[in-house]
C-alpha cells in the first residue's frame, strides 16, 4: 500500500504495444524477418556460464510487468492474465533450488481409490476396495476410465493427418491450388487450434478466486554452494541440506498466489524503475523509493538463487 496503489486504475498506462508481435519487437526480437536464422535470434545460446541475465530480467520488468493493467483493463480478478511460473533448477547454474507449492484442500480431506485413474491396471485388492468404497459411500459418478476419450482423440488426430496429406497433394499440382476445396481447407478460419471463448456461465477457477486447489503459498529451498565450497572447513563432515530460501508469505513478499496477487506484485516491481520511453513514475518520498529499489533488488537476488550473479 505504501509503495503504490498497484491495482489502482489511475496508474494504468496506455498500451504502446497492442499485439504479441509488438511485444516481441519491444523485447528485441526480429520477427519481421522470418528468414533470419531463428536459432540465432532466439536460441538458448548459452552453454557455459550464464551472461546477460540481469538485462533479461530488466527487459521483462519494463516490457511486461510495467504493462500489467489494473482492474479497469485487466478485470476485477486480473482475469485478462495467466501466469507462467519458472522455477530454479537443481543444476548449479546459480545455486541448486527446489520449490514446494501448497494449495487449498479445505473442501476435501481424503481420497478413496474409487476414483483411481488407472482402472485397468489396479490390483485385485485395489479393485475390490474401489468397489466397496463406491458402494458404501455412494459417491458421485466420475467418468473414470479415459480409454474412450483417447480413442476418440486418436480418430480426430488421424482425420487431421488425412486433411494435411490432402493439402500436400493439392499443393503438388499447381492447377488445383486455386480449387475451392483447397482454399477452404487452408482457410485460417478452419484453424482448430484457436479456442472458443469461455462460456459466460462458467465461474472463474482456482487461479483467480480462492477455492479448492487454489495455490496459497510456495516455499523455495536452496543449497548455498558458495558457503559450502568456500566457508566450510571440512566439507566431508558437512551434512548435505537444502535450506529455506524464501516463502511467498514471508515478510518481504507477503502475498497470495492468485493471478491478481501476481499482477499486483508485477506492478509494484515495475514501479521500481523507469519505463523505457516514459517519464519516470514518481513513487513518492525517498523512503518509498528506497523500499521500491529494495523490492527489485530482492527479487533479482531470489531470481539468481542468492548466488550473487547480479553482482
Amino acid at each position, binding site marked *: 500500500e505504501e509503495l503504490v496503489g498497484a491495482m489502482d486504475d489511475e496508474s494504468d498506462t496506455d498500451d504502446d504495444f497492442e499485439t504479441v508481435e509488438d511485444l516481441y519487437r519491444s523485447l528485441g526480437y526480429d520477427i519481421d524477418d522470418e528468414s533470419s536464422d531463428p536459432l540465432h535470434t532466439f536460441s538458448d545460446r548459452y552453454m557455459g556460464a550464464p551472461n546477460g541475465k540481469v538485462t533479461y530480467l530488466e527487459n521483462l520488468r519494463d516490457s511486461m510487468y510495467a504493462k500489467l493493467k489494473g482492474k479497469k483493463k485487466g478485470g476485477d480478478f486480473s482475469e485478462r492474465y495467466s501466469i*507462467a511460473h519458472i522455477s530454479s533448477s537443481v543444476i548449479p*547454474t546459480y545455486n541448486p533450488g527446489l520449490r514446494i507449492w501448497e494449495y487449498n484442500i479445505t473442501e476435501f480431506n481424503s481420497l478413496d481409490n474409487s476414483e483411481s485413474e488407472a482402472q485397468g491396471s489396479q490390483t485385485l485388492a485395489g479393485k475390490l476396495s474401489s468397489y466397496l468404497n463406491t458402494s458404501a459411500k455412494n459417491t458421485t459418478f*466420475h467418468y473414470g476410465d479415459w480409454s474412450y476419450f483417447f480413442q476418440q482423440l486418436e480418430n480426430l488426430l488421424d482425420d487431421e493427418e488425412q486433411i494435411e496429406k490432402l493439402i500436400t497433394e493439392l499443393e503438388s499440382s499447381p492447377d488445383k491450388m486455386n480449387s475451392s476445396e483447397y482454399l477452404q481447407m487452408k482457410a*485460417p478460419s478452419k484453424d482448430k*487450434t484457436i*479456442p472458443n471463448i469461455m462460456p459466460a456461465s462458467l*465461474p472463474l477457477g482456482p*487461479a483467480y478466486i480462492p477455492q479448492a486447489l487454489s495455490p496459497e503459498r510456495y516455499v523455495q529451498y536452496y543449497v548455498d554452494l558458495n558457503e559450502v565450497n568456500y566457508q566450510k572447513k571440512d566439507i566431508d563432515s558437512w551434512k548435505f541440506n537444502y535450506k529455506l530460501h524464501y516463502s511467498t508469505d514471508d515478510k518481504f513478499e507477503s502475498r497470495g498466489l492468485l493471478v491478481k496477487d501476481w499482477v499486483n506484485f508485477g506492478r509494484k516491481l515495475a514501479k521500481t524503475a523507469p519505463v523505457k520511453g516514459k517519464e519516470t513514475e514518481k513513487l513518492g518520498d525517498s523512503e518509498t523509493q528506497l523500499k521500491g529499489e529494495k523490492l527489485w533488488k530482492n527479487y533479482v537476488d531470489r531470481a539468481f*538463487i542468492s548466488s550473487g550473479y547480479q553482482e
Partner: protein
Amino acid sequence: ATDANGFTSARVVHGRFLHITDMHPDELNVIGAAIRKQCHKKMKNVVSNMDVSHKYGDPMSGCDSPLDLYSSTLEWLRTNVKDHIDFVIWTGDNIRHDNDRAHPRTEAEIFDMNERVVADFIDTFMDDGEEEETVFDRRVKIVPSLGNNDVYPHNLFAPGPTLQTRELYKIWRDFIPTEQMHTFDRGAYFLREVIPGKLVVLSINTLYWFQSNPLNDNCDSRKQPGYKLFLWLGATLKECRRRGLKVWLSGHVPPIPKNIHHSCYAKISVWMHEYRDLIIGGVWGHMNIDHWVPMDSVKAWKSIKKRLLAAGAWDESNHFPFIDYDQM
C-alpha cells in the same frame, strides 16, 4: 498405503506438490577438475580454488551437476519431502549438456541416463510397502516432461511416432497411463490425474513450440508440430472441463517470448485465458532463473484477430468472438 487385508486405504491429501527441474547429472564431473574443462578433467596449472570443481558443484561455472549433488538431492527429498506431498512435477533435462568436445553425447547415453534418473525418482518417492503395488497405484504421482537436452540431437524433436517417442515411452512407462500409449507416441505428451477426479497435470512437450527446435517454424500451419500439439491440448482441456477437473500445465521450455514463436505464444495465451475456469497455471523449467511471466490474453487475441483479418477470415459472429477488454 495398504491395510492388514491388503486393501488400499483412504489416502490423505497433503495439499502440497514438488516442482523439480533441470537436474543435469554429469557422470564425468570430477572433484578438483578445471572449471574451464567443464569440470571433466584435472589440470596441473590451475592454482585458484575458485577455478576447480567442488563436491556439490560450482555456481556460474557452466559445469553440470556432480553426481554427489544429484544423489544427495534425491536423498534429501526422500527424507524431508516425500511424506508431505501429493505429487511431483518434474520438468526434464536429466543429463549433462553437450558442451565438451572431448566427450560428445550419444543418443544411447542420453536414454541410459534418463532411464537411470527415472529409476532413482521411483525409488525416492515410493512409499514403504509400495514395491509390489501396480505403479499407477503408488501414492506420490510423478509427472515428467521432456527437456531439450533429453533428446538427440540437442533441441531437435520430430513429430511421432519415431524411435525416440517409442524409447521415451519405454523409459516413462511407469508414469504414462496405458490408454495414452498411442497418443503419447505422436508427440511425447500426456496427462495424469494426480488427485483422481479433481486435479490433472498435463505434461506438455514444449519442444514443439521451442524456437530452437529446427523442426518448428510456427503454430499456425497445419503441418507444424506445434499446431498438432495444440490440437491435443485443446481436446484434452475440453475433456477436463467436461469432467470437472482442474488443471496444471507443465513442461520444460517455458512458453514465453524468449523461447517460442509469437504465433505459439499467442495461442497458448488464449487457451489459458479461455480455460481460466480450470487452468491454475503453468510450471516450467529450462531457464534456471526463479521468475514468472504474465501471459496477456488481450494482446494474444488481437494478434490472432489481425492474422485472420489479413486473411479475410475474421468473423465477429464466428465461434470465437473477440472480447475487447478495452471496451468492457
